[in-house]
């Protein structure tokens, strides 16, 4: 069964450093998303991406964050200057569509980001 993959599974970085989290969505999906989950808390929406542009973003997704689909398969989340509070599990998700039975979002296994 097709699945979303993410690399790395765990990233440790120093405060102020840039990190890039990588995701390979399911191949025929058109909508891509990033979420984060601080340990023990709920999952929070960051951004959605469609047709090579951001279609929705949350207040968490400030100028320090950016997303890119550099080729036909990868979807990346960049954090330019990491802060301690960026430490969380970051989930990538994808969906084929956005309405009806096509809007089911499939989540990847996550990247645990630890900022020291």
């Amino acid at each position, binding site marked *: 069964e097709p699945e979303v993959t993410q690399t790395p599974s765990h990233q440790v970085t120093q405060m102020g450093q840039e990190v890039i989290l990588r995701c390979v969505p399911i191949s025929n999906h058109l909508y891509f998303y990033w979420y984060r989950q601080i340990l023990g808390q709920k*999952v929070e929406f960051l951004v*959605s991406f469609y047709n090579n542009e951001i279609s*929705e973003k949350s207040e968490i997704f400030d100028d320090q964050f950016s997303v890119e689909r550099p080729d036909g398969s990868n979807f990346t989340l960049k954090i330019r200057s990491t802060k301690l509070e960026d430490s969380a599990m970051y989930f990538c998700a994808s969906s084929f569509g956005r309405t009806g039975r096509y809007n089911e979002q499939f*989540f990847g*296994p*996550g990247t645990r980001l630890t900022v020291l």
Partner: protein
Amino acid sequence: GQQVMQIPQYQHVQEGEDFTTYCNSSTTLSNIQWYKQRPGGHPVFLIQLVKSGEVKKQKRLTFQFGEAKKNSSLHITATQTTDVGTYFCAILSGGYQKVTFGTGTKLQVIP
């Protein structure tokens, strides 16, 4: 934006007992989704409800959407240890592209 609250926050049950988690909103919802997250895992979509009073079943799981579309519930009959995890209700919004998760109910099943 729309928010949903879940109760209880935690639930411990003996294996074989039933379990119910409730999701409430102060505003009318166009839809409600349910996800399961195993310990250390990622959210997995379970179901979406859109109609007032809708009831859907998946084996031992029963999902309901309230008549006023302001609340929803997930009921598990005869829990098993494989049911352990956190159950989140969620709203699909923002042009159906943003999933807003509830606070979650963490279920522990005691064998």
